[in-house]
């Protein structure tokens, strides 16, 4: 097979990366193994589990269902970009910690990215709305209840922090 290469330029967590990639390279592999942002996890590589969810131009997107070349000229945020460096946690991460919304933590980055976009668009969700939005991310450890509690707590705190 002829390996065709493409020069791409993409902004990830605010930093510009210009790289040459093979056309078949998955975006998830590009993020994890080329950019070494291993916080984005891969659970199924067929778009069901949601572990690899990133923000692609602000929208939650499964990075295992895209090629790296498709990210050319686009903006990506991964779990590493949720806090601006240091050891701090943002309100959603803090609520996940306090409510024990994670166990093995493998699905957690994808859930954080999905719920970040959800809370942006829905600052005052009820439990049913949270469960609906969460239903595209599989978690095998928690039974979801503590994640739902965490998202509701984060929403409450984020509302309180708004001017």
């Amino acid at each position, binding site marked *: 097979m002829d390996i065709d290469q493409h020069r791409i330029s993409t902004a990830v967590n605010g930093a510009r990366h210009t790289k040459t990639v093979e056309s078949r390279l998955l975006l998830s592999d590009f993020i994890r193994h080329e950019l070494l942002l291993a916080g984005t996890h891969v659970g*199924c590589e067929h778009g069901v*589990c949601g572990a690899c969810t990133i923000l692609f131009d602000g929208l939650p997107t499964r990075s295992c269902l895209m090629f790296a070349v498709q990210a050319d000229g686009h903006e990506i945020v991964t779990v590493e970009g949720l806090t601006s460096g240091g050891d701090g946690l943002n309100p959603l991460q803090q609520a996940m910690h306090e409510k024990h919304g994670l166990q093995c933590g493998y699905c957690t980055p994808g859930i954080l990215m999905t719920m970040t976009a959800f809370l942006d668009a829905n600052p005052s969700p009820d439990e049913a709305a949270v469960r609906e939005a969460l239903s595209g991310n599989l978690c095998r450890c928690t039974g979801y209840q503590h994640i739902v509690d965490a998202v509701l707590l984060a929403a409450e705190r984020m509302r309180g922090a708004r001017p």
Partner: protein
Amino acid sequence: MTTRYFGAPIPRNEDQRLLTGRALFVDDVELPGMLHAALLRSPVAHARIRKVDVSAALQRNGVVAAYTANDLGAFWQPGPLLVPPPPIDGIVFNLRTNAPLAKDKVRYVGEPLAIVIATSRYIAEDALADIVVDLAELPAVVDLERALAGGASLVHDDLPSNISAYVRQTKGDYAAAARRADRIVRRRFHYEHGISSPMETRGVVAQWDERSDQLTMWDTTQAPVFVRNGLAAMLNLSERQVRVIAPFVGGGFGPKIMMFYPEELLLPWAAMKLRRPVKWIEDRLEHFVATTHERGQIHDAEIALTNDGRILGVKDVFLHDTGAYDPYGLTVPINSQCTLLGPYVVPAYDSTFTAVFTNLPIVTPYRGAGRQHGVFVMERLLDIAAHELRIDRAEIRRRNLIPANAFPYDNKIIYQDFAPLSYDSGNYEPILDKALEAIGYRHFIEDEQPKLRAAGRNVGIGIVNYVEGTGIGPYEGARVQVQANGRVSVATGIGTQGQGHFTVFAQIVADQVGVDVKDVDVVTGDTDRFHWGAGTFASRGAVVAGNAVSEAAKVVRQKILKLASEYFECAEEDLVLEAGHVSIVGVPGRAVRLGELAMKANPMRGAVKPGTEPGLESTQYFGPPGGTTASGVHAMIVEVDPDTFMLEIKKYVVVHDCGTVINPLILAGQIHGGVAQGIGNAFFEKLIFDDTGQILTASLADYLLPTSLDVPRMELDHIATLSPLNPLGIKGAGEAGAIPVGPLFAQAIEDALELPRKGIELLEIPLSPGRLWELAAMAAGS
């Protein structure tokens, strides 16, 4: 000693890393010059291997090596037996374990035939298509009963039949009990448990360092110490030359403890041969055949009772699907056999199982580990008996509970840990009462349900009991050490897959040593940090390792007090250990940091007294005399749509007794997650194979894991009956949530749809909307 942390619902120490993407999982390991492996897996379930030719693959650009079984030389050998069969009279056990690559025959779809190692995973997978394979297909053994019939194809040609094992255990005289009985209920039950499907699949990275003669393997295993030991033996290395690291592991639930998976042998072997690091990460499609399942059993069971619902005896004969090989011994079917007895007085028991080789992937324990199968049989027999004898479902259970004054209660059969199945402690009736009250049992049955039914609603209630043998031996160990910076380190040999070990072990230590729980650093699953231990299984981490941690922390506390008393020249009784300092009661300002004491305990110059050990450190081991038995009750109210058979869980209650609770928040998470997996098992997840042994559900789009819309909010309550078998009084809790959900679903759905009245009984798990529709249609047709 104050207990600021032990028993408190504190958030976890490990969360920070996991929430910010800084936790190391196996696939995050990146090494210079690392190669990538892909495995060619058998496309058929049963065949003789005529040829596997990798020569074309080796021609491909980027391919570094490709191996078949013949290339492995003396390294090719069937793997070890992980769990020997218990000492039971008359036991038959035919051990047949898998080899790293199939040589003469393939015995299940997915069995590895060859491994390709290339500069990228993409190229390694390309090269799999270059391999020429010639297989002479044989009839596949899939059905358990046909597997034992005359003329069946043989999974292992050197055995006279497909029998893997045969075990009979008895207690009392069942035949006599049956003769005395007013009623005998006899049914056939099918119970299948699926695949644990953790969100992280398996993976291995192996690195051979020539300069230090040291092999390092990062492995998604639940038992790093035993993998290290076995690997050293098979590679002809000493244990100290092999380091196995189970870093953060993305869920396990049992199957990550199989030994050996082929990749755990092939990768280190290849890394040594090629002198380059090699990585293999299982993809989700591979996972469905390359990681072990639990799957099914068929039970022909009967229960003998008096007219007032007292159990006189139970007889059970069952078949157990062990898959193509049986490296995990008899753990799963023994658990089914033992756990069937539940919290009940069963004076006579006669249980026989035959484990059957099939041309399907290997069966090993998955959360519950066969306990589900037994609990389903017993709970369903009681439901049917209650219906026939016109006794309330909760009442028939109450009448048969082992009374609180009967512990320790000897069941007179042998459990999976080779010890007699004896329940150490328990108090079952209050648990049942609490659950009945929490679910509103009387109110629902007498008031709510009739009203809703009159309005055309299909609502039902279920209530089930279970016990769980947990915290089995042999032992675990831990080392606790005060560091010069005042932080306390804890190392233990078990692996961790999300259970909160970094927090609960820290809680135990923080109280003993008088530091903040955040100042305790726990390391698990790195054989260079702690090189003894068995692993994380059988709900034993908190029980066995937790008590080892506690004993080590106690010794460190004594060392701290002794040294501080010498330092202050005062009595130990006058010292206070808190907030990382030792101070003297009533003398403000006189305090010494723990870190400073740690440095004093390791002097650079001068003489020490004979027998002095350096540091504020202790290593202790704990091995319980036997497993400790946890128990609980689940109750549920459901509504079923009579057209689609979809169900909505209106209320779900768990009341549970796992002895002393270290962290209620983490315990709740364990229960929630267990119930979610139980719900998946009961109503969503099914591994489907066709009659040639092909899996038809090898994706998460076909094998349905429950989502946030399927798992309800749960109400939890606890009682605490301490275990007398360990100093902390802990019982295991990891598997409890998952165990009784199958019979709970069957009972509640039967009730909701009034199935007994229609002559329909739910005698199988998993159920599903489709299966309920079929059963209803069959009943309507007959």
